[in-house]
């Protein structure tokens, strides 16, 4: 069975600083990989996804992620955060067709002015 580890439960950054959120997965095969964001009192929104090809994928709102097969990782980055980026970020994987996603526990990001 696959699993996802997000080692940082909370991250605090200053507005304008860069952000990196870590995600490592365990899977018997290379999974499909996703980052979702959950704003307060809202559902999850897809930030970006990786299926194959270029290991660096671009998402919405200036986010990007880099896949590393050798490290079994899919880290999320943003060059300059805004206060509106304060949210909970989830890494998720899927290896089985239409059988649901396996999520990490999430990282809560707080951006301070």
């Amino acid at each position, binding site marked *: 069975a696959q699993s996802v580890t997000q080692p940082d439960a909370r991250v605090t950054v200053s507005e304008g600083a860069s952000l990196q959120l870590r995600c490592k997965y365990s899977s018997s095969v290379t999974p499909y990989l996703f980052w979702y964001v959950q704003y307060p009192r*809202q*559902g999850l929104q897809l930030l970006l*996804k990786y299926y194959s090809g270029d290991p660096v994928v671009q998402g919405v709102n200036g986010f990007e992620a880099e896949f590393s097969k050798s490290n079994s990782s899919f880290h999320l980055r943003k060059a300059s955060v805004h206060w509106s980026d304060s949210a909970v970020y*989830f890494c998720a994987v*899927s290896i089985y067709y*239409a059988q*649901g*996603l396996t999520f990490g*526990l999430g990282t809560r990001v707080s951006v301070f002015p």
Partner: protein
Amino acid sequence: EAAVTQSPRNKVTVTGGNVTLSCRQTNSHNYMYWYRQDTGHGLRLIHYSYGAGNLQIGDVPDGYKATRTTQEDFFLLLELASPSQTSLYFCASSDAWGQSSYEQYFGPGTRLTVL
């Protein structure tokens, strides 16, 4: 834009109570999912469905039933609610074909409290 709606948004019931959570998607997606979100556990899959009349068991199905009445509507049933089922419940949908079947669209969630 794809849309998944859930009702009610908040629900309080008592132990042993009967609760139905509703989900409707207007994405024309075949697949629908129910997850629960709990601190320390992230999101966990309860049940999912490939289409009307179909039901598949997820990772944490105990204490839950589900029914898919149409392509659009998926219901989660708690027939004897327990405090351990206090949680935030999310519904999601995904397309049927190729890589799009892995990408899920989520509703806003239903917060259920069992006293």
